[in-house]
């Protein structure tokens, strides 16, 4: 019934495709964290236009499926004369989409921070940038690490959607593999194993950080 040969043989093409999963989601995570922090700062800023911008950002990017966003970037931008290479489109879209979710997670954690924490920083005349990097984010990140890792793991998995712009990552490769072997169960199981390996690394980093940052 279950074909172990297919299962094991699937690893070669899938691991090869995993390069792109790691590349797209890795770059997407790094950029997404940065943009997410900016959007979060915007959402909490005292300046109303900034808050509205952040709210629209989050609402649009969470409202429209990543797949549609990718299609828009890759297929609609050319219509108005902007042609982006597939890999750039993939990384950019994934990062921007992730930033919306990440900023919301941080906003929640920051809401739970006692107000006195920033007041103490303000009272000594600390600049907003320092307040963010030294007081707010370190505490918010520690507090929200599990939720953040959740999001990053989702991101790794969501990166499978970039196959629509022609990037052969794990999920796409496994579909192709399933179609030639006609053994989707075995192939998807192998794909799941590779995803699991990548995500275990992320979870491990998360655990380690949690441990380190605990006081």
């Amino acid at each position, binding site marked *: 019934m279950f074909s172990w040969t297919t299962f094991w043989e699937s690893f070669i093409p899938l691991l090869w495709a995993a390069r792109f999963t790691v590349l797209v989601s890795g770059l997407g995570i790094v950029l997404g964290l940065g943009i997410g922090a900016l959007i979060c700062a915007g959402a909490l800023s005292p300046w109303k236009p900034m808050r509205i911008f952040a709210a629209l950002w989050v609402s649009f990017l969470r409202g429209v499926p990543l797949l549609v966003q990718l299609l828009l970037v890759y297929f609609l931008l050319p219509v108005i004369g902007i042609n982006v290479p597939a890999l750039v489109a993939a990384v950019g879209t994934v990062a921007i989409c992730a930033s919306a979710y990440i900023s919301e997670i941080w906003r929640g954690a920051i809401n739970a921070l006692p107000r*006195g924490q920033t007041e103490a920083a303000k009272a000594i005349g600390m600049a907003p940038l320092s307040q963010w990097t030294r007081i707010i984010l370190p505490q918010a990140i520690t507090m929200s690490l599990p939720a953040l890792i959740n999001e990053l793991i989702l991101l790794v998995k969501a990166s499978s959607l970039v196959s629509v712009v022609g990037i052969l990552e794990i999920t796409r490769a496994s579909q192709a593999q399933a179609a030639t072997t006609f053994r989707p169960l075995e192939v998807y199981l192998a794909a799941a194993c590779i995803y699991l390996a990548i995500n275990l690394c992320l979870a491990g980093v998360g655990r380690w950080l949690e441990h380190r940052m605990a006081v």
Partner: protein
Amino acid sequence: MMNDLLAHYGPFLLRGFGMTVLCWLLGTVGGMALGLAIALIQRYSIAPVRWVLRIYIEAIRGTPFLAQLFLLYYGGPMFGLRLDPIPAGLLGLSVYSSPYFAEIFRSAFGAVPIGQIEAARAIGMSEPSIVRRILLPLGLVSALPAMVNFSIVLTKETVILSIITVPELMYQVQRMSAETFRYVEANLALALFFWGLVELISRLGRRFETRITKHLIERT
């Protein structure tokens, strides 16, 4: 042309949307309940149990929903587990989302100042009461945006249920675009329905959030 399309596929799309909302709702509620149970057991139980739950969390969280659902629905019968599409879909969604919710709850509990829990312990409050009256309401402040986030992600994961022939929105949309090649209209409908649902969820989330944070503006 457009009218014909609407007349013919409109009811299917609506029914599909209804199924999507239903699956999302039940899946989310199931996942939250399971996740809360996991987070609480982790908090209050002995190390071996915690390890087992840890493995469960990482295994489910680390693998794609597509693969899990495939395994459950098409692989299940190999092990004597034969489910109909909708029960399989709901079970799949709940199990898939549970580790995410568990982690969100865990981080929420961690954000509650220990002093507030000690104050409750000191008067002899039972742990269930502490969870209900102190841990959850206070933890929710930091967890709510993350929970709304993930619920929104889940709306989109429901489209995967189409692979096990649950007649949800994606299933109907695929059918419409395959039959008519009107993929623009079909996908527009898909996007609009989802945006509507997501807007609704985030609005409700925001409203609930302002309610629970209103009184927390702390003074020194």
